[in-house]
């Protein structure tokens, strides 16, 4: 069964998951480690099953899986219980549909994009945008901004891999940049000027018209909307989108995370002896900030080894995407690359203080069954693809 599959991928995700188990034991103790271990066993079992299903079947199933996931996300909003509404509780375990939505959306996007041989116009990008916006919006309402925003980088990479030229993608999404820039009139003027010059040299009328009109509108309408809402609403929105502005809460986490990593120095304080995590200075130790504990206990050495494992894993996935001749399979693999890669770098960048806090788990390492399961499902599909990568 494992013949001809990319064994490197299997080894890498198993090693990363084991590092995850060890760090969960160190940060949260035996109970959590055992629980995560159960999830890992389940994930491996499901991965075995998934790796027997051919890409063609996946492609055909994609709309149904996508629809079921959307229904789950929708139902989640009507559950009673804890706020934010992110989990279905099933006895001891809880399921996080947003993690599976990533898998389903990547599948759906790949399935849709594979049918289009030529992706040249803006209208071609509208349906993919809708495909990711629906789950993203449902997750945003939960609310879980961190999980919701992950869909858009995935979309961009998959569009790129499916053949849309990068400038085209940029122009398509540029109104968002314009709207953000419009908060400062100077920034916006500079941006719109530079953007116009860029469009001019593109020498494509459709690009110019779409780009200029959409950017101008976004830049002009945004301030009007912003100023028409009440001040407390503005504050609420600012604090929602930039929690790191709150000095008491978020910067404390960043500072403590940086202290944890920095104090590890070259070789770390040793397994189980991180003082930052032991004395509860680190927030979310076994989930979002598990990488900080790794840095504290294993030092630079541990960080470099772990990051290398991730980069190697992602590189293997990238090679797989390149070598796979099946268009659906190739685009799907690029989606998995975008998903795992973006989440990994966002999380590690956050713990080192390079990026704002977004509350994204680190694939394979962070405590959480749904995330682990979804990642294993994605990789297992990749494994099957690697087995039959030369088939059309």
């Amino acid at each position, binding site marked *: 069964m494992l013949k001809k599959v990319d064994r490197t991928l299997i080894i890498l995700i198993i090693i990363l998951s084991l590092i995850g188990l060890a760090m969960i034991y160190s940060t949260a103790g035996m109970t959590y480690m055992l629980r995560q271990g159960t999830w890992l066993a389940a994930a491996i079992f499901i991965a075995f099953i998934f790796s027997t299903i051919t890409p063609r079947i996946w492609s055909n199933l994609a709309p149904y899986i996508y629809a079921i996931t959307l229904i789950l996300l929708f139902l989640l909003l009507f559950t009673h219980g804890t706020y934010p509404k992110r989990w279905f509780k099933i006895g001891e375990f809880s399921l996080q549909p947003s993690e599976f939505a990533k898998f389903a959306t990547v599948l759906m996007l790949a399935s849709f994009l594979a049918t289009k041989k030529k992706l040249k116009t803006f209208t071609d990008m509208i349906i993919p945008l809708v495909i990711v916006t629906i789950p993203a919006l449902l997750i945003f309402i939960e609310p879980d901004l961190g999980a919701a925003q992950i869909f858009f980088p995935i979309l961009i990479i998959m569009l790129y891999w499916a053949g849309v030229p990068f400038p085209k993608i940029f122009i398509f999404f540029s109104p968002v940049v314009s709207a953000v820039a419009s908060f400062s009139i100077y920034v916006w003027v500079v941006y719109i000027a530079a953007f116009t010059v860029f469009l001019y040299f593109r020498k494509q009328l459709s690009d110019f018209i779409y780009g200029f009109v959409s950017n101008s509108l976004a830049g002009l309408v945004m301030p009007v909307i912003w100023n028409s809402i009440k001040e407390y609403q503005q504050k609420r929105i600012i604090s929602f989108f930039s929690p790191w502005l709150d000095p008491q809460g978020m910067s404390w986490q960043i500072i*403590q995370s940086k*202290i944890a990593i*920095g*104090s590890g120095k070259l070789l770390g304080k040793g397994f189980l002896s991180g003082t*930052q995590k032991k*004395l509860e200075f680190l927030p979310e130790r076994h989930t979002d900030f598990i990488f900080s504990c790794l840095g504290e206990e294993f030092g*630079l050495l541990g960080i*470099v080894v772990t990051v290398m494992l991730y980069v190697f894993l*992602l*590189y293997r996935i990238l090679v797989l995407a390149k070598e796979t001749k099946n268009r659906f399979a190739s685009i799907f693999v690029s989606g998995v690359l975008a998903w795992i890669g973006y989440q990994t770098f966002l999380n590690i960048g956050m713990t080192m203080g390079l990026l704002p806090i977004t509350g994204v788990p680190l694939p394979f390492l962070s405590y959480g069954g749904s995330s682990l399961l979804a990642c294993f499902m994605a990789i297992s599909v990749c494994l099957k693809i690697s087995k039959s990568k030369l088939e059309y």
Partner: protein
Amino acid sequence: MDENVIKFKALRNTLGIIFVLLVISAIRLQIIQGKKYYRLSEENRIRKRYISAPRGKIFDRNNLELANTRPGFYVSVIQAVVDSNSLKEISNILGLDTKTIKETMKMEKNPFIAVKIAHDISHRQLAIIEEKIDELNGIEVGVEPVRNYPYVDILCHLVGYVGEITYDEIKKDNSYSIGDYIGRMGLEEQYEKHLRGSDGIEYIEVDARGRMIGRISEKRPIPITNGKDLYTTIDLALTESVAVYLQNYKKASCVCLNPQNGEILVLYSKPGYDPNLFAHGLQQQEWQRLNNAPDAPMYNRAIMSCYPCGSTFKPFVALAALDANMVTNEKRFEPCRGEYRLGRRIFRCWKIHYSLDLTNAIVHSCDIYFYQLGRFIGIDTIVSRARDVGFGKKTGIDIPHEKAGLLPDRAWFEKRYGKNWTEGHIFNLSVGQGDLLVTPLQLATTFTVFANDGKIPVPHLIKHTAVSYHTTSISKEAINLVKEALLGVVSSGTGTLAGIRNCEVCGKTGTAQNPHGNDHSIFVGFAPAHDPQILVCVIVENAGHGGSIAAPIAGKIMKTYLANITSETPVYQKSGGDDALQKQVF
């Protein structure tokens, strides 16, 4: 080139760049800044905790405690850990507003050091805090020594009080930290360094919520050094008696000292206040109320109030005249007929004395005799001798904020009234009225010139101090002559009510006219006349005649004291009992 290969290379390079970026930032954090972050992680878990040293006790001359310490509970906040909910909660419990707490916290620059925000909280507050301690992040409760003054308002001015240190004071002296107490007024202020001791430091390991996990063995704690005790010359029992004798009067002060060595026995001022109030952080309004009260309870009248000394100045005018050899004891002036005309002004005497010699003029306190004597010997003669015995300058007592009083001389009069100052001013000066001002302590000290044969000791409050004396250049004969007259004041003159059976008492009454109401009643005296053990100065504000109010009180004080020092049986009972408890806690 194949389109896929271009995209592959683009993504592979992105992957490579991100990898390099992450490794570089890890190196920056862990290698370049590793030491700094390691130190921060240690500071995170290791907290320096200051342990307040108990202040030294203050004892009276018979080893009774005038000030001691008792255990009290304080509340402190760690800025780095506290959150807004906990702040709100604790401010509710303590009845402080959050703004005040935040201001206190801001003073400490190191956010990991606990800042004391409330002292000596009630048992009720303590119980509430202990109950909610799990919800109160960054709030600590601890035990600290609290200053205690058992004799509340009878010794408050002398002993002073302790108050929370201000930010400006910390800037001046960095051995203090926020929430520390510093001595204010009296002995507490003067002997701050002696009494204070030095705070200890212990290093404890804490978790993220600031809760203690245990002590750190790698770092050696700095033990506390208790403040040193202070042994004073004060006689508590006598002070208590003085308070009783003066209980019917609103505003008064009394100084008792040993004229032979300057040891102060009583330094009493009325009204007083409760210095214990300051121990648990007095609120701004309360302090304002105390400080602005019309009868000025915070004011130590014995050393800070300047009174006209009235007739008690007459012995010094006589002393000056005799010392300058300008008159003899037999000198007589125009007889007293109750009033004396100077130009258009009429100067009165309180009684018609007819013709008197110098001794009898003192004994019967005749104003008209002294008007003429003053004019006869001249202002310079009076002022030079008066200054010699201590008028117009500080006595040098070892508590702060002493006033110097005022001895007007020729230059002062000229500056104040121009060239036109008249003999009328000399007349007033000669009977201790007008511009002459003295503090009760100063007046007491000047009288030691008679009690101690011209040797004036510097008054002091600490036992076993090497006493320094000021020896006047005034002739012994003059001193003895005036002393005889002072004996006569009590035996047959204005001060007979100060007399003690079987004991010779010297003294002089004074009735000080003042613009604030009735005359102040003054008496200064010492006993026994030929081996003086106690010198008393009593000033009762707005009470009337010196001979009728102050003199009997002074007599009772001298009698009480002399009875105590001659009795064989121990008169004082040592009050104690709290000691055992305190030793357990600290």
